[in-house]
């Protein structure tokens, strides 16, 4: 049973980290874009 839970934990951890990294990078780029656009005005 421990192997089953370990495998499922790894699966969801990797998926979570992938989605989190995409979200964080998106937020960072959006902020940079906002700052550049503000500077243009």
């Amino acid at each position, binding site marked *: *049973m421990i*192997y*089953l839970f*370990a*495998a*499922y934990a*790894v*699966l969801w951890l*990797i*998926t979570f*980290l*992938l*989605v989190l990294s*995409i*979200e964080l*990078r*998106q937020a960072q*780029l*959006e902020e*940079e*874009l906002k700052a*550049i*656009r503000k500077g243009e005005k």
Partner: protein
Amino acid sequence: MGLRWNRFLILLTAIGIILGLYMALVFAPTEATMGHVQRIFYFHVPSAWVGFFAFFVTFLGGILYLWKRDLKWDRLALSSAEIGIAFMSTAIITGSIWARPVWNTWWTWDPRLTLSAVVWVIYVAYLMLRAMVEDPHRRARLASVFGIAGFASVPLDFFAIRWWRTIHPVIFTSQGFSLTPKMLWTLLFCLAAFTLLYFVILIQRLRLENLRAELEKLKGGE
């Protein structure tokens, strides 16, 4: 894709994953020889499938970029490769966890396992290659060629268990599936749910690349 469609896809995927978990942990019968640990199968195979499919999209993106010279295809190829690496990592690690109680080893240099590791390394190298080139079109050209050539490893990995003697089981044979109907339904359902999950993540990852392209364009215009 519109926001409403995107939300609908996310909701559908969430329902699919929850139902998939239920089917894998409750609905599917316990395998007679391996016991509960065999239930890893219902997420191990879909992870490998998404990995292979993602690399196929990278291959297609590479061809389309070389044909059209439009960077949007390169962005698609990159986004898909990153997702493919994550799911291939999952397939390799869950396979290793499954192998420990069943084969009595975490890892063996079996053709399927070795080729899966080779596929993983090829696509990590694909990302490293991209990081080393500054010019967007030069980067896209090199990455496309690498992505197309590297994809040769994917069918090789898929057919490894059919062509060579290996300890890895073969589920899809020319005679059909070596599974009970309940096991087969669970697997097919999880395959569909994971494919939806791939598209949900791909949309978000593409959005990130589009933002990056917009930023590079603005910086270039300064």
